[in-house]
């Protein structure tokens, strides 16, 4: 009797798990590809896309135009409906002026979107600027708000929200010390900027909110983290940061919050080397608990992770292989869809053992720190290069993935696809 009860209980409990971890062709449905802005002033160069969701609409931001010495890159935005219809086909120029604007990021809080970027318009050093847009696409700050505009370079901002207010992080060069420092500042939906707090998070911090705190991940040579409160003040400061991943060449991590449970951090593994000494390429994920510590259940795999293991470990989403000429590498993207994290990454092809060529995008759902889908699901896969993805979630199983699509003539267009997980 007891055995029968246990068996019934196991069956009953396992039903929703089975549904939630369904694998198959429809695990992630990928919609048709669309461009954000066909004939922009950037003359066929659109880069560094990012996307956020709020008030029933996605806002996509990107760099429109060449950002080199002879260029004039501007930050543009476009609204996209949840079913993938571009609602502002002519684009929205976020900031006027000449010069170079790069690395836009966007988040939603209250009832506005906040776009942040680094701006070299002064021609001497970059500043971090911001502008708010309404969900209807109205530019609320016709003159950008200076988040960090002091002497020296202030660059590579990121922004996230706790639902009510924004937190902007960036790196700022201290000329007296000849070194960068990491900072954060709170900003309200009404445009008030709080005091800049030194966070210790650099270089190139990425942040996400998770119920009661932000987590900033950053690093060069490894990935480390620090928890920040709503004002950007470090909660668990550590001189060397809290290590998430050791020994990562040119890390470009992505992070998303999993409400009340923690944060998922994604980062690539090695780059190809001629002798294969560095092991295979890989796309990996790690889970950080609400306390800001690496999930202890990952511990058994970390040693192998560092040892140049050539097989796929449980927390790896993808693994490279020079014989099959594939190599996952580059900045990934992830977002919480309400049940799982949806992770998107770039899988390159390898020529002549070390040269990364035609890249495609793949996705999987992640539960905890393991992939749910047995096989990675192609998001964008054709003869052209697709890379640098960003993804945002409406929270109900609808997501928007945007990315750069490189044509053989060298033009680059920001392109999108709707993803559906249920």
């Amino acid at each position, binding site marked *: 009797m007891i055995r029968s009860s246990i068996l019934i209980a196991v069956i009953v409990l396992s039903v929703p798990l089975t549904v939630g971890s369904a694998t198959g062709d429809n695990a992630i449905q990928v919609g048709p590809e669309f461009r954000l802005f066909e004939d922009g002033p950037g003359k066929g160069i659109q880069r560094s896309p990012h996307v956020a969701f709020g008030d029933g609409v996605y806002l996509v931001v990107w760099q429109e135009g060449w950002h*080199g010495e002879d260029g004039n890159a501007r930050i543009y935005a476009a609204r996209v409906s949840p079913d993938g219809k571009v609602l502002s086909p002519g684009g929205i120029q976020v900031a006027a002026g000449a010069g170079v604007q790069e690395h836009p990021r966007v988040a939603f809080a209250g009832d506005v979107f906040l776009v942040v970027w680094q701006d070299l318009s002064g021609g001497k050093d970059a500043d971090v600027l911001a502008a708010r847009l309404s969900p209807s696409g109205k530019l609320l700050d016709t003159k950008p708000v200076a988040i960090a505009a002091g002497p020296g370079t202030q660059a590579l901002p990121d922004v996230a929200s706790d639902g009510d207010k924004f937190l902007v992080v960036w790196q700022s060069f201290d000329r007296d010390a000849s070194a960068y420092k990491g900072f954060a500042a709170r900003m309200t939906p009404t445009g008030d900027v709080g005091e800049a707090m030194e966070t210790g998070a650099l270089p190139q911090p990425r942040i996400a909110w998770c119920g009661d705190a932000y987590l900033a991940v950053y690093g060069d040579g490894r990935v480390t983290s620090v928890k920040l409160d709503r004002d950007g003040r470090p909660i668990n400061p550590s001189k060397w940061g809290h290590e998430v991943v050791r020994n990562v060449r040119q890390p470009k991590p992505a992070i998303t919050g999993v409400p009340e449970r923690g944060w998922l951090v994604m980062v690539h593994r090695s780059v190809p080397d001629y002798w294969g000494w560095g092991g295979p390429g890989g796309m990996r994920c790690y889970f950080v608990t609400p306390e800001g510590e690496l999930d202890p259940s990952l511990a058994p795999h970390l040693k192998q992770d560092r040892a140049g293991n050539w097989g796929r470990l449980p927390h790896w989403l993808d693994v490279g292989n020079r014989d099959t000429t594939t190599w996952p590498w580059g900045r990934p993207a992830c977002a919480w869809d309400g049940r799982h994290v949806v992770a998107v990454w770039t899988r390159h092809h390898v020529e002549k053992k070390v040269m990364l060529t035609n890249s495609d995008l793949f996705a999987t759902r992640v539960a905890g720190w393991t992939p749910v889908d047995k096989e990675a699901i192609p998001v964008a896969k054709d003869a052209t290069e697709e890379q640098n993805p960003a993804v945002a979630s409406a929270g109900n199983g609808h997501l928007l993935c945007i990315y750069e699509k490189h044509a053989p003539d060298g033009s680059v267009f920001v392109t999108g696809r709707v993803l559906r997980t249920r």
Partner: protein
Amino acid sequence: MRQFVCRFLLSSLLIPAVVKSAEAQEGGDPPPEIVLDETAPMWQVNRFAGNSTAGPVLLQGPAREVGGLTRCAVAPASDGSVFLGTGRKWAHNRIVRVTPDGQLRLIAGGGSSLSDGPASRAKILVGTRGNSLVYSSSDESLYYIHTMIPAVRRLYQREGRWLVETIAGDPNRTGDADGPGDEALFTEPMSIAVTSTGTIYVLDDQRHLRKIEDGHVTTVARFPGGPKPVDGPLEDASMAITDMSGHITLGENDDTLYVADHWHFAVRKIDLKRGTVITIAGVPREHACFNRHSDGSALTRASFNSGCAYVKWDGVHEALWCGGPDEHRFRWLKDGKLTTVIGRRGNRKWPLDELGVPAADVQLVWSNVAAVDADGGVYLVAASTWGVWRAYMKKEGQ
């Protein structure tokens, strides 16, 4: 399996070589000798571009505040600008320019096109081991190569826009064919040198010396390999260049070419006018294995650690910078003698982002002299620490 093979190679080749070196030292051979150049105390080093705390994303702005620079190829221009080729072989490279006022701006790269056209759309690959980036004042162009792109390409400015043009070879097709530039084929361009009149010399595939003159490609020499360096006429001279080296540099005039003959542990000098090759530095390999990188008389005492990996002519000081890949210091060949000018061995940290650092404090590993500018500034790069440093003699100013 691959790891096993690598470990086997390490244990069978490298370790015995190190042991042999140690035994040789204990067995009576004189220890490596460092002879400081008389100018060494006068040299200082500035961080020129990059910052160790900036991170892996390429930034623009004040050169000493940018991140994202890897080991760089360096090409000073006649107007005081300095071009840098940055990036690694596995991803898209970029060419940036540091203007005389210290601003670093992106010039080319990040695209996917190997066709001629705007630099903003170009796929750029620039080698960082050989002399792969050279500025030619004769046509105000920047020439660049990479072993994986079998062509010689140039970057030039027209009406304010930067453009890319292939001047010889086909970026999508390898081969070995002379002829007009658009019909010629290259295999693996490793190093490039441009004369004052615009003639281009290319070291192709470790063994072929090619020349591009008036748009026409010819093969100047096909060097046979061999265990020992053979001097003499170009057609008989042997070279042992590896994929870790491949440096050529023009010397005191347009008819003199120096070669880092890596696995012969030697510096070779080619007289292009007479068509001859002579060895000018490096004791024979059997006396110059690992950890033997002595200064001293060029042909009887001087040696290179792990072979001679680079050469760079310094027209201001009339000296040839040369060295092995991992010597931790920078040496020049002058008046028949190899002496140490910059750097030292050891594990001490040095202020690598600072200005005015005494040259003796510099510790760059897997390093080389990448370029010398018209003011005698010497550009240093390393695989271990990314970015660019500029060394200069105090009396010559910053």
